[in-house]
Each structure stands twice: as C-alpha cells, then as structure tokens.
C-alpha cells in the first residue's frame, strides 16, 4: 500500500507547530526584539499547527472506505 503523502506532511507540521506554540508561550519577550516585538513563534506555530491538523484530517478521511454508491 502506498503511504498517503498527507500523513508525513500533516504529522511533521503538527509537531513543529506544537513545539513553536509551547516555546512561544514560555519564552521571554526579549527574544522577540528582532522580530519587531511580535511573538512570531506563537502565531506562526498556530498557523503550522492548524495546517498540519487539516492535512492529517484529509489523510484520515481518505483512508475510510467509501460506502458503495
């Protein structure tokens, strides 16, 4: 069976996104001086997390057997 390419993509970005969000929540504000004072880890982490989860959802949905029409 061929692996649905959305699984590795979804999995990878979910993990990276979650890591960034957690780091964004605990890191001191001084880290974000260079990024114009925006907590980019938190916000971009959320973007990646959502993207990863959507990919995973699509992959899971495609795996379910379709009812015969």
């Amino acid at each position, binding site marked *: 069976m061929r692996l649905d390419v959305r699984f590795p993509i979804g999995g990878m970005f979910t993990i990276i996104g979650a890591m960034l969000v957690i780091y964004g929540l605990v890191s001191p504000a001084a880290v974000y001086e260079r*990024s114009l004072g925006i907590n980019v880890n938190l916000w971009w982490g959320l973007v990646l997390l959502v993207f990863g989860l959507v990919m995973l959802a699509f992959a899971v949905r495609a795996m379910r057997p379709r009812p015969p029409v």
Partner: protein
Amino acid sequence: MAASGAKYGIMTSHFYWVGAMPAMVFVGLFMMPFYYGSRARSVPEYLKLRFDEKTRGLNAITFAIMTIFSSGISMYALAKLFELVLGWSFHGSIILSAVIVLVYIFLGGLTSAIYNEVLQFFLIVLGFLPLVLLGLKDVGGWSGLTAKLATVATNAGFEPGAWTHSWKYMDSPSHNPMGMEWFGLVMGLGFALSFGYWCTDFLVVQRAMAAGSMTAARRTPLIAAVPKMLMPALVILPGMLAIGLHASRGGFLPIGDDGQPNYNLAIPMMLAHYLPTGLLGLGLTALMASFMSGMAGNVTAFNSVWTYDIYQTHIRPGQTDAHYLRVGHAATVFGIVASVLAAYSATRFNNILDMLQLVFSFVNGPLFATFLLGMFWRRTTGHGAFYGLLTGTITAALHYGLTLPRGAVPGIKGGFLGAVLHTYPSEMALNFWTALFAWTGCFVATLLISLFTKRTKTDDELRGLVYSLTPRIQEGSMPWYKRPVTLGVAILVVSTLLNVIFW
C-alpha cells in the same frame, strides 16, 4: 534566486514568468507525448532513439558535467550557510554537506525522493513566509520597499524604479541592473535557456516514466508550474528586502573580496536578522531543504546518466544488474567528490545564479535547438544532430572566450581567448547571449548538415518520436476543464497578468 533579487531586483522574476512558465506549458502540451510514448529513461536515451549513439554519447557527457556543476553550486550554498550560522570553517562545512548528501542518496529511492520533494516544498513555503511578512512590515510594506530600492537604484546610477519594475527599463541595457534589453532577455532567457532547461530536465523525464497515463504525464509539468508562479514572492522578495536594508541601514550584507556585497548571503542574513530562536530553526531547515534537494537531484541524475548512457553503452555492455548497481554507487561517490571541486570554483562568483546560468547556456542552449528540429522535422539526421550539438557548444565557448562582463578580468569569467571583442554590462547578460549564440549555432549547423546527409532512420522507426509521425491524442471524452490544454492556457494568462502588474 534571492541573491539575484538583491543584485538585479524584480527583474529576476523573468526567470519564472518569462522563463519557466511558458517552457513548462510547452513541455506539458508538446514534449510529454514524445517522452511518455518513447519510454526513454533519460534525455540521452531519447536522443539515441531519435538519432544515433554518438549524439547520445555527446549529450551524456555534457549533461554529466552540468549536473556536477549544479550540485556543486548547491553544496557551496549549503556550506556557506553552515559557515555563517554555526561558525564552522568553509572546508569543514563542505565535507559535512558532502557526507549528508551521500547518506541521503544511498538511503533513498525514487519514491522517497518524490515524497521528500513534496515535504520540502511545504517546508520552504512555510519557513520563508514569516520572514517575508516580517521584512515587509519592517520596511513599511511594498511602498516602503519601493522607496528604499529607489535609493539603491539611484546610487547605482539608474532611474529610481529600476529595482521594482520588471519591464519598464528594458529598452536599453544601460537602464537596468541586469544589463539586458528586451530582445536578448526574451530570446536568450525565455527561449533558448528556459526551454532548453525545462524540456530536458531530468526530473521531468523521470516523472513521465512514473506517470500512470499520457494525460497524467502531460498534466505533471503544468501542475508543477502553478506553485512556481508564486515562488518569486518567497525567494526574490527576501533578496530585494536585504539589499533595501543594506542601502538604508548600511552593512547589512558582508562585503566580498571584490568590494561588492556578497549577494549569496541575502537569505541567511535575513533569517538571522528577523527570526527569533524557535522560528529560526524552521527557516534554516527550509533553506537546507532547498539546497539538499538541488544537490541530491543532480547527483542522482549524474549517477544514472553515467551508468546507463556512458558506462553500459560504451565502456562495458552486457554485464549483470548487480555489476551496474555497484558502478552506480561508485558514480555517486565520484559525483559528490567532483561536486566538491565545483563548489570551490563557485567561490569566485558573487551571485551563484550567474554561474549556474553560464553552465546551462553551454549545455541547454544548443540542446534545445537539437530537440526542436528532431521533434518537429523528420528530415533531421543523426550526423546533423551530432555535429550541430558540437557546433553549438563550441560557439558558446568561443563567445564566452571572446567577451567579458564589465569590471571583470579575463579568466574564469570569460575573455580567456586573448581578445575581448565585446563587454557586457553584467554576468547575466553575457550568459543570455552565450545561450542565444549557442542555440543559433546549433540550429543552423543541424539544419545544413541534415540537408546534406542521408537519413538513417525510416519513418517507421521514428513513429512516436517525431511530431508529424505521432498519432494525435484523443481527449474527446474528457470534460474541457480537465484537459491539459485548458490548464496550460490558464497558466499563461496568469503569468501574463503578473508581468503586467509588476511592469
């Protein structure tokens, strides 16, 4: 690409919207049927089926040299990144990148390569996007960037809009940073270089082999063209932002030995400037992914061309598969060692895209003329193709040896034949004209020699290899919006629109 964004401004987008888009549509609509129909495993193999063994041999050799240079250039970029971010020595970084690629190729196959490429694509998009957004916000949006780049342009002695208009200043080579006028750009880059590159791209042929049907094979390059259209926003904009910041804040980019800013470091410097710990890791990974895929793809291509088209055909035919597999592994190791040498020669160029295009102009420029004649004119003969290809490459070498980009000394950058007949305003202008000369040389020579030599292949042998002898594809049962032609036209319309917007 980002390096060119800094050096040449938005005109770099021509590589995508004038170069890659039309060429990829052409590949999908016209070339794919030949590749898919002939079941050739590589470009040299197609040349063997269409012409003869000697044409294949010549192309295999030039192709092998080209892949080594391409992978060497990626290796240089990766090593520079290690040097800059981790503070290692350049020599150590080169060796490390060589080892990583070696492991990567030995572990993977074609399937894993395709999976990797999809992953790398998303990684690059999602890794660079925050950088572009932050950079744009910092300089005050597109209008702020335009204002900063106006200073860059006037400092360099151009009109204020020279970095932010892709066509407006193309009336004369002295009005734009690339040093090109529209004719040389459209013919040299748009026609000879891009068509030559995309039509004979090793990955395209591989995909054609892996595709399940003719329609799927034709649709592949078309679908690949869609993200390519938007790539300038991710790869050229950071370069433009970097040079804008370099001018307004001073010393953003390190200065190289020749007194020019080192444009190759535009993206690494931007990453280090804007991204905090955390996201910086993602950005660096994205950058490494893009270099890694470039290197691995080229070394793999070198390996198969050497093994199938040179070794198996000319050196030791009729051996066991296991024997060829061992030769392939040895070729991979050799290819990586040769790439290391090419990487050191890349240190001589302040923009690695200049060097890459130079290599392409030698190999792809003439090759496209051979393909065009071979596919659409059944009278083209094997002798014509071989000597035409040879003439084209020699023309490129002569042109390169007799001309020089402005401000360079004769040597590796051209002019090595003693006399300098013409001086181009930039390296890129020299490359485009080299490609155009090579194409014309090959085209004329192939045409003339074919007329004076006998055909060696009958119409029957050329079935599926020449346009007029290939049955038309029937797609009547498919709804119009699913046909490759519709997709191709849509891509051309959008890239025309993009050209108009950034006029």
